[in-house]
């Protein structure tokens, strides 16, 4: 008799499946990244002041990532609801904690890749030169922030998946909740890039905050996701 997979194995299975689907559909590379890049370019035209752009760059990067989160999270559950797969997962008794962790992991990977592209775009477009040691804060804060965004996005996208008008409901639910992540990530990147007049070391408390939010979001998601995806 076969043994059903545990939480970790389920999460790995779901994450691998979601990433495979995204790799084939290329929605992130062909639609979300160009959308985010256009945002960055438009900001550059709108502000048209290299000094101001340098100061605003961290906020612009994370605002763009947050907008992209909405698209990616919608997409993550569109593939589940297109042919009734989410209901089939529930009927099949697949562990909702595993589903949550798997989907959040896949979303975090996509967002991290997106954030990396956006930071590079900001460095080039806004003519920034990060100080030595800033890269570690940059990467660590990006990991923590994308995990926090992915966990929160997965919770609310799962909640909105079965609701009519979910496309407009999701931003309304997610944007206020992720504002601490937006603020923390912006401050950490300011420190990492040296654009806010602060030292690189000043970024670490913000990284700590992001790590706490990421863990708290993951715990809340694991505890509530089963109820969120119920009819």
């Amino acid at each position, binding site marked *: *008799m*076969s*043994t*059903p*997979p545990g939480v970790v194995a*389920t999460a790995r*299975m779901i994450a691998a*499946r979601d990433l*495979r*689907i995204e790799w*084939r*559909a290329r929605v992130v590379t062909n639609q979300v990244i160009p959308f985010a890049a256009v945002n960055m370019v438009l900001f550059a035209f709108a502000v048209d002041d290299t000094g101001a752009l340098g100061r605003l760059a961290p906020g612009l990067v994370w605002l763009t990532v947050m907008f992209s989160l909405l698209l990616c999270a919608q997409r993550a559950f569109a*593939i589940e609801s*297109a*042919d*009734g*797969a989410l*209901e*089939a*997962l*529930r*009927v*099949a*008794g*697949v562990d909702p904690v595993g589903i949550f962790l798997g989907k959040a992991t896949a979303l975090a990977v996509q967002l991290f890749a997106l954030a990396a592209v956006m930071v590079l775009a900001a460095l080039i477009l806004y003519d920034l030169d990060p100080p030595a040691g800033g890269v570690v804060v940059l990467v660590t804060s990006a990991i923590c922030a994308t995990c926090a965004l992915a966990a929160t996005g997965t919770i609310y996208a799962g909640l909105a998946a079965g609701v009519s008008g979910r496309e407009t409901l999701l931003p309304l639910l997610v944007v206020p909740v992720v504002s601490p992540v937006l603020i923390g990530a912006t401050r950490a990147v300011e420190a990492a890039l040296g654009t806010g007049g602060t030292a690189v070391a000043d970024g670490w408390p913000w990284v700590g905050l992001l790590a706490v939010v990421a863990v708290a979001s993951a715990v809340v998601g694991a505890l509530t996701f089963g109820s969120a995806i119920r*009819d």
Partner: protein
Amino acid sequence: MTPFMTADRPTTPDRDHGSTDAAVVLEAAVVVMGAFPALAGVDLDVRRGTLVGLRGPNGAGKTTVLRLCAGLLRPDRGTARVLGVDVADDPAPLRRRVGYLGHSNGLYDDLTALENVTFWASTVGAGRDDVDAAMAAMEISDRLRDVRVRHLSAGQRRRVALAGLVARRCELWLLDEPHTGLDVDARDQLDRLLRAGADAGATVMLSSHDLDRVDAMVDHGVDLVAGRVSREVRR
């Protein structure tokens, strides 16, 4: 071992009936949707290994019976025991033993047929042998295995979805309007596959508007009207 044979699980004696023969026992089951009773006191006794057809007009309660048996709904009054498990208590132990296909197939368009069946098999820890056997049983050719399901016809998609149930070795198949969207050949093929599943020990319950087709293929026909059983025929 035939691909349809259900997993080697201990059967739980049905407390109400003292045997393991009953796959589904509904007693005066009432399910209320809003202010409307979708089921208004249904009594039903389905034996294991039978092919059961639920017939009736729209709104008769066919889908509600299937969703109740899948543990997606709980009875507001009366009892519902499925594979020995009381759905009102906790349907969780039931979940891995029941396969439900609603009007949709639960497939991922950008995965191939093989990847879809492998995914659903892996949700219960079933292996590659189970997947291969299920694909063969559902007559999914080598040519179709590696095609993304977005490129398959409605009938082919249905077969891939059923292969997922077979690979999971579900004891009870619940199929809501499985013939919808299929041409005549695909319907005939589906009927043959469902019959083979029931003959191999799975209990198959399906709903349909197609009275003649259901009459011709099932062991146990159940007519529903306005949330009640109006007629039952057993062969």
